[in-house]
């Protein structure tokens, strides 16, 4: 098997329809996301009504290549490996402590070295996108929380932004600031969890509990703001559900100070630990080209040296007003992805402080009717979630429910990277690599 730098050859007939797009050196925003979309369409794992979407009654499946069911692919492959005397099949997951949910990785092992890795998903499928078509816009906000349940705020934000585009309304300025604060707090919470689980994957239990302790503090703030700790249902079209309660500012600042005190401890405890360094440096290298070609986003993309951040590249909710850096690491390994996230925590703290300082007075809620019926049309909105570009594609037929709601979730794309990144590594590295992709299976199995 080749290294991770070369893309594996198409293993089955299904892949023959993959269009090999030329890798552009400095892809513009549109190019990258366009390519991502296009690739996603042909991968055959969801329907994507693109240019040839003609109306509600089109049978969209006819446009998709005939893909054998995933399970059959795996069975075939497992047989192939088992036929080989020198290789061993190991099922990592779906019930494995380190796959961050219900991911099943079919590993071909030679000794402990990975010869192939096939991620198998779908164990958490809840017909999320179908439910979106059945629930009202109102309820869809609440439902979108369940997508990436570790970053509910940004999910809501993506959906709300999409519907706002449909409705052609603008949120109030204060609402924008509040949204930014919540997004960044959410990013911090998510990255803290990432820190903990990475540590846990690498066998260090203590950092996990420490980071959860701080994450709880962030969740306290969320609870104070929205009344819920994990799934907030906080965003509203044209604003947010409720304004900040009094004292929120102080509470948030306390948490930020706490974090700033604790982050050096994290680094002492884990980040600069030599064992951690050797476990992560040079492991799971994802090249810049591969990262772009496979539609990686967020810290995974930035860890491979691509300074692409939607908050800068395609600002929304007034991110252009804030001064912050796009954290980039060049090496593309687990360590790079880890460090990108750790730096992003610091950047997020910066953003939140700026937003708190400049929080304008005014109404946090827009003048929008409770029950809405957006005009027919389609719209795509995207935000930079903690895991990367989170896109929401909404098609309205003018009713009070979305005709179609599709989510472009970063974790899904990152899980597909597992097909080639771990090859050549050891079993222990697979764990680290999965951890560094930080997938959330709520958004992988939509």
């Amino acid at each position: 098997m080749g290294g991770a730098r070369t893309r594996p050859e198409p293993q089955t007939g299904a892949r023959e329809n993959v269009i090999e797009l030329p890798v552009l050196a400095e892809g513009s925003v549109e190019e990258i996301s366009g390519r991502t979309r296009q690739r996603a369409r042909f991968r055959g794992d969801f329907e994507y009504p693109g240019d040839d979407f003609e109306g509600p009654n089109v049978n969209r499946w006819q446009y998709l290549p005939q893909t054998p069911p995933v399970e059959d692919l795996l069975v075939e492959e497992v047989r192939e490996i088992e036929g080989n005397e020198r290789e061993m099949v190991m099922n990592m997951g779906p019930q494995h402590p380190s796959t961050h949910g219900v991911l099943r990785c079919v590993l071909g092992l030679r000794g402990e070295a990975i010869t192939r890795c096939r991620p198998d998903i779908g164990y958490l499928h809840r017909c999320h996108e179908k439910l979106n078509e059945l629930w009202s816009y109102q309820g869809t906000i609440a439902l979108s929380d369940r997508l990436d349940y570790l970053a509910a705020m940004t999910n809501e934000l993506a959906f709300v932004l999409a519907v706002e585009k449909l409705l052609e309304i603008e949120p109030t300025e204060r609402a924008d600031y509040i949204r930014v604060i919540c997004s960044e707090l959410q990013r911090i919470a998510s990255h803290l969890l990432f820190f903990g689980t990475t540590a846990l994957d690498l066998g260090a239990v203590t950092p996990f509990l420490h980071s959860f302790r701080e994450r709880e503090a962030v969740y306290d703030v969320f609870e104070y703001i929205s009344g819920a700790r994990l799934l907030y249902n906080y965003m509203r079209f044209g604003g947010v559900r409720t304004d900040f309660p009094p004292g929120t500012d102080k509470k948030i600042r306390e948490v930020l100070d706490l974090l700033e005190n604790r982050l050096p401890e994290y680094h002492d405890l884990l980040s600069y630990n030599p064992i951690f360094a050797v476990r992560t440096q040079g492991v799971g290298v994802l090249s810049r080209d591969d990262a772009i070609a496979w539609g990686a986003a967020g810290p995974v993309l930035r860890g491979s040296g691509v300074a692409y951040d939607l908050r800068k590249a395609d600002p929304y909710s007034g991110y252009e007003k804030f001064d912050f850096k796009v954290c980039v690491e060049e090496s593309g390994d687990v360590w790079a992805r880890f460090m990108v996230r750790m730096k992003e925590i610091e950047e997020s703290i910066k953003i939140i402080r700026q937003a708190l300082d400049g929080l304008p007075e005014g109404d946090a809620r827009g003048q929008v009717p409770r029950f809405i019926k957006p005009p027919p049309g389609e719209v795509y909105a995207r935000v930079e979630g903690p895991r990367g570009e989170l896109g929401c594609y909404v098609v309205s037929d003018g009713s009070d429910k979305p005709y179609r709601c599709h989510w472009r979730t970063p974790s899904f794309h990152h899980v597909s990277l597992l097909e080639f990144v771990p090859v050549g590594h050891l079993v222990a590295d697979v764990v680290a690599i999965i951890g560094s992709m930080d997938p959330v299976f709520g958004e992988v199995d939509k």
Partner: protein
Amino acid sequence: MEAAVTRNRSFRDFLIYLYRAARAIVLGHAVTLKHLFRRPVTIRYPEEEYHATPWHRTYPALVIDEATRELKCTACMSCERACPPGIIAIERAQGEDKKTYPGEFWIDMLRCMECGICVEVCPFDALEMVPEYKMTAYHPDDGIFDKERLAVVVRGPKTPWPRRKGSYLEGGWPT
């Protein structure tokens, strides 16, 4: 500070690496040692309790008007219609004064996702999200809350903001 991987480096670099590694390990142990003498953050639940914010959304409860000692609910069915998972069931009843009231009011708390939409849509403030999180039950049937289980008296200002002001209803449809 930088913890570098040693690979193809000179002996001196190796020594430097060794020093850095030892230093990092010692620092890590210092952190854990420090924590040994810090206070635990655990809340020992039955003895101590977590005090959620008053507006914590745990479950929607039926508000009893303290003055009349009756439910505020008029069984207008707004919440039943708005509930995304559709877990609210109301049997409307009519009293002697022709006022409607909920004859039965069920919420399947096993499926409730605590989004609070029912509270938002209630025109009479008859529903309220309460921060009561001790909801354990011995039997799944106990998870379906009926009127009696749901009825609470809400005292004091529950939320720090006026509830009805700035409602969505007040706005108009953008043209």
